[in-house]
């Protein structure tokens, strides 16, 4: 690693203090990044949220598995995991065999599982249910995402809510402002015509929005240019000053791992972003579900575990909370295609150093069903309110139409 890059890395990882910022002209580029941290309150309780969306409806019953319940095995004989296959959490629940990292985090007290999360009058449509989750409005999903409203309420700087997906997820769209979608690959080879960033009088609203995206890009560019590279795993790199560049032959990272990698680099660089959105699709498994879902969960497990463990190694990282949800779980009973159809309540994961690990919410019954579906036991807005209050330091009632319930004890 050349000196320059290493210096950037050291500054970014907080190993050396602000004095290093004066070290040279290039460091001022990084200074631009760190300058975005000026918007951040200095309150140590100020945390960062990484919201992970699993598109398609992940089968919660084959993720956090009620292996000891005979009803589980009766309802889905072909799909069910045997008690000896699951990664046991206690004498009734176990994780999917693909989730070895989550098991480790659970044992370390850094993984919380909220069970039976859903909302009244569940929707079985992917799109409507995802709208409900992303807007946080089960009765009448509107046009703003719950984190978009948070952005509106806190000043509307697009850099504060960032997604590395190609299309901005609705959850980050507010009424007057929107988060920033940043391309996963940094290849800004073309000069940005900053002059496009001003809106012109009388132009159609969408054209004005296109112009504003230019203004946002100029700001985001200043933030993410020259992010430090990913340190080698192990955590001692910064201390020993021997962070090795990744070998060129390194296996390509999965898209979700690549998103997490960017989030990690931003957090370590101390950027102003308070909310990151990350996503993984492919959970809609109506047929031949078992192997495919395990593959998906293995990919998720690897990316999330690496991220959470990496975050545990830096001060900024220890303020990061990851929350993982999907638009619904799946039907208790399997269909004839060795898959499951759209269901209702499911498990929601919360991970990170600020999390008090363990099980939350009541486990839904597999026999007392609502037309074949689980009855929810925790409203998802309780989780959102907990995150708004405990991670983003915002009054949940302002964002969630007056909602005040929370999941007690989830965050430290």
């Amino acid at each position, binding site marked *: 690693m050349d000196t320059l890059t290493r210096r950037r890395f050291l500054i970014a990882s907080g190993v050396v203090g602000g004095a290093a910022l004066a070290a040279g002209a290039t460091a001022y580029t990084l200074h631009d990044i760190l300058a975005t941290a000026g918007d951040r309150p200095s309150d140590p309780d100020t945390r960062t949220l990484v919201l992970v969306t699993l598109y398609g409806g992940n089968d919660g019953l084959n993720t956090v598995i009620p292996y000891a319940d005979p009803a589980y095995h009766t309802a889905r004989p072909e799909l069910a995991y045997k008690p000896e296959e699951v990664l046991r959490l206690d004498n009734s629940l176990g994780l999917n065999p693909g989730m070895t990292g989550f098991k480790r985090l659970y044992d370390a007290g850094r993984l919380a599982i909220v069970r039976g999360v859903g909302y009244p009058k569940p929707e079985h449509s992917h799109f409507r249910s995802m709208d409900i989750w992303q807007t946080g409005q089960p009765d009448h999903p509107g046009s703003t995402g719950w984190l978009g409203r948070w952005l509106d309420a806190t000043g509307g700087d697009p850099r504060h809510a960032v997604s590395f997906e190609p299309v901005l997820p609705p959850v980050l769209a507010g009424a007057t402002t929107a988060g920033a979608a940043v391309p996963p690959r940094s290849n800004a080879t073309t000069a*940005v015509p900053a002059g496009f960033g001003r809106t012109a009088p009388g132009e159609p609203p969408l054209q004005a929005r296109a112009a504003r995206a230019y203004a946002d890009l100029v700001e985001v560019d200043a933030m993410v240019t020259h992010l430090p590279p990913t340190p080698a795993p192990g955590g001692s790199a910064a201390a020993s000053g021997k962070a090795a560049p990744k070998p060129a032959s390194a296996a390509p990272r999965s898209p979700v791992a690549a998103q997490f990698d960017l989030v990690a680099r931003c957090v370590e660089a101390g950027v102003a972003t308070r909310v990151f959105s990350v996503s993984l699709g492919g959970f809609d498994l109506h047929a031949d579900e078992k192997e495919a879902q395990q593959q998906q969960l293995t990919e998720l497990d690897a990316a999330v575990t690496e991220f959470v463990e990496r975050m545990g190694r830096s001060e900024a990282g220890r303020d990061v909370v990851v929350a993982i949800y999907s638009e619904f779980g799946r039907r208790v009973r399997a*269909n004839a295609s*060795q898959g499951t159809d759209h269901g209702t309540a499911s498990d929601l994961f919360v991970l990170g150093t600020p999390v008090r690990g363990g099980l939350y919410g009541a486990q839904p019954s597999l026999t007392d069903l609502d037309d074949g579906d689980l009855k929810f036991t925790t409203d998802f807005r309780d989780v959102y309110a907990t995150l708004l209050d405990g991670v983003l330091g915002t009054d949940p009632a302002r964002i969630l139409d007056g909602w005040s319930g929370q999941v007690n004890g989830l965050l430290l």
Partner: protein
Amino acid sequence: MLRRATFGPRADEVDRAERVGVDATVAALLAPAGDDAGAARTPAPTLPFVPAVPATGDPAKIQRARQQVLDQQRTATLWWLDRMTQADHQLPEKLTFFWHGHWATSVEKVRDAGLMVLQQQTLRRLGGGDFGVLVKAMLRDPALIIWLDGQTNANTAPNENLARELMELFTLGIGNYTETDVREGARALTGWGMSRALQKSMFDPKRHDGGVKTILGRTGSFDADGFADILLAQPVNAEFLTARLWLRYASAQPLPDDVRSRLAAAYRARRNITDLLRALLTDPAFADTRGQLVKQPVEWAVGAMRQLGIRPRALSDKQQRQLLQDLEQLGQVPFAPPNVGGWPSGAAWLTTSAIQVKLRMADALAAQAAPATIAALAAVPAAQRPEALARLLVVDAFTDRTRAVLAKSAGNVRQLIALGLASPEYAVM
């Protein structure tokens, strides 16, 4: 109208439309006269069946098999992009892309580009006619069956995927059916499956549930067509399709009730899509929707290629790969919608990420522009080039904001074109 009905009109097409007037233009768009020489130049590729990639065995063999699947996928996608730029009958071609977003099926799961092309051809052939005929053809479409797990739907425990999306996304819209209708509808669809090797769908009576079902208040031993007939007879089908077409052809703003009624009535008479599209394009409310649509990435890129005289097939291998990669980064590749709901619309496309990709693409497209296009713009005095650029790209007018940026590059024709393509004005239509 031309911006919406085609993949991006050329200046000469706008001139002709101005000359012949609105009525003749609509008529020519909806019922193009003569053979389509552009379509004849771009015949659909024949893609033979490729066996599934083996899960285990010789790694070299697996690699070859995987490569073959991907090569076919690339061939099909480039072919369609080429067809979009070349077709003379632009309205039916664009309508085919609309239907692709409606019956949004992805090669990522179907894993057979030949079946995707087959589906595209069905949408092209039937997309402008009786919607009922299209629905029944799609219920037998091999790619759609694989996409929504129809081939595994058996009478023993029906798979609800296709039945649900058929009602929610393809014919009625959410809120117009119950969960019981989904479960009963799934029973009606049992028995349809497909043979991968023959690239054909097939009906197996032994797997069909011939019992009595109750769907949307009607009771009978319905099969797939019987189920489709019930859906087509729902009054809400007309309103649903009207809204779907309005969203892509007119505006992302809510559709006013009186417009909805007018358009739905035009469709209902014969359940005909061309009737609906004619009513939409000629409705007084349509003219007020200027600037209310964001170009989807494919519309943006194909429109630019049409206007600049670029043909995807004529690009180098490297340029073709870059084109597909850029479209992927913009979030829209034909034959690969993100999910069964199709692609997003409106402001969702206007992201900082998209701008970066578009800036790069705009540079590449300007570099690939036909020499005649460049020469024509270079022949205009520098001070008038922004006007000429607006004409070339069929932008009504650049704002002062954009003119200020363009003025600085007026001396460099290719740079000027790139800026025009990247401008906020060119992002909407």
